[in-house]
C-alpha cells in the first residue's frame, strides 16, 4: 500500500490522491454531479414553463410564433458546431496535440461568442417589438391576454438569459483552458481539465437543445 503520505504534489496528482486514475475519476464524477445540480437548477424554470404553457396554450402558441424561427434555428446550429469543435479539442487533448487543442478551443469560443451575439440581436429585437415584460409599453399582437403573454416573455428572458449566462461562463472557462494549454500544463496523461470543460460546454448545449423547441417550435402553428 501507499505508505508515502507526503509525496510531491503535481497537477496530475494532488496530494490527497494516491493515483492519477483516482484523481481523474474523482474529477469526472465531480463534474457529472455538478451537472445534475445544474439540471435541477434549470428544472425549476422548466416546471414554471410547463405549468403556464399547459394553462395558457393559446397565448403561449401566439407568443412562440412571434419568436424569430430562422434565427433560433441558426443559433442552434452554431451551438451544435461549437459542441463538435469542443469534442475535437478534447480528442486532440487525448492525443497530446497541443496546437490542435488550442485551435479547436479558439473556434469553440468563437462559436460561443457568435451564439451570444445572435442572442443579443434577438433581445434587441424584442425591445423594438415591445416584447419586454418589464417595460410599460409591452404589447404582443394577436392576443388580448397581455398578462399571460407577459408570463411567456418573462420565462423566455429568464431562461434564455440564464442559459446565456452559462455560455458566458463557458467562454471564460475555455479561455482559461486555452491559456493553460499554451503553458504546456496538459499532456495525454493529464488532460482532465479539457475533458471537464468539454462536459460543461456540452451540457450547456443540451439545455439549449430543449429551450429551442420549447420556446420557438411548440404550437407555433397557433399563431398563424
Amino acid at each position, binding site marked *: 500500500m501507499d505508505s508515502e503520505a507526503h509525496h510531491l504534489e503535481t497537477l496530475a496528482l494532488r496530494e490527497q490522491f494516491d493515483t492519477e486514475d483516482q484523481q481523474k475519476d474523482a474529477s*469526472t464524477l465531480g463534474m457529472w454531479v455538478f451537472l445534475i445540480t445544474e439540471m435541477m437548477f434549470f428544472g425549476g424554470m422548466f416546471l414554471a414553463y410547463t405549468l403556464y404553457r399547459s*394553462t395558457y396554450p393559446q397565448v403561449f402558441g401566439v407568443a412562440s410564433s412571434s419568436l424569430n424561427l430562422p434565427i433560433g*434555428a441558426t443559433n442552434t446550429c452554431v451551438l451544435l458546431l461549437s459542441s*463538435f469543435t469542443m469534442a475535437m479539442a478534447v480528442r486532440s487533448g487525448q492525443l497530446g496535440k497541443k496546437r490542435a487543442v488550442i485551435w479547436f478551443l479558439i473556434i469553440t469560443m468563437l462559436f460561443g461568442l457568435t451564439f451570444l451575439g445572435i442572442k443579443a440581436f434577438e433581445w434587441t429585437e424584442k425591445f423594438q417589438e415591445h416584447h419586454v415584460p418589464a417595460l410599460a409599453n409591452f404589447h404582443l399582437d394577436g392576443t388580448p391576454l397581455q398578462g399571460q403573454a407577459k408570463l411567456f416573455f418573462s420565462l423566455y428572458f429568464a431562461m434564455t438569459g440564464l442559459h446565456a449566462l452559462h455560455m458566458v461562463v463557458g467562454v471564460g472557462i475555455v479561455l482559461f483552458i486555452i491559456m493553460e494549454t499554451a503553458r504546456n500544463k496538459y499532456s495525454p496523461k493529464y488532460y482532465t481539465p479539457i475533458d471537464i470543460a468539454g462536459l460543461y460546454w456540452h451540457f450547456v448545449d443540451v439545455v439549449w437543445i430543449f429551450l429551442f423547441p420549447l420556446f420557438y417550435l*411548440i404550437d407555433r402553428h397557433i399563431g398563424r
Partner: protein
Amino acid sequence: MDQHLEQSAHAGHAAHGEHPIDSVRTYALVLVVLLCLTIATALVATIDLGFFNIVVALGIAVTKMMFVIWFFMHVRYSTTLTRLVMVSGVLWLIILLTLAFADFATRGWLNVLG
C-alpha cells in the same frame, strides 16, 4: 451495479484505464445527424400536426440530447456510476414535475373551489 459500489475505491480503480479515442469520422457524423435533426424539427414545427407537434419537437430534442451525451460527452465509455448519476438527475426532474402537476392538474376536480 458498478463494482465501485461494492469495493473500496482504491481496489476498484484498476478497471479505469484510458477510454478509446473516437475517430474524427464519428464526431463528424454525429454533427451531421444533429444538424439534420435541427433542420427537421424546425421544418416540422411549421406544419400543423396538432398535439403531435409537441411529441415530435420533444422527441427530436431527446434524440439530439442522447447523441450529444452518448458521443460528445463520452457516456458510451463511462462507468455505471456516471450513468447512474445522470439517470438520477433526470428522475428527480421527473419527480419535481409530476408531483407538482399532481396539484395543478387536479385542481378543478370535484367542483370544489380551492
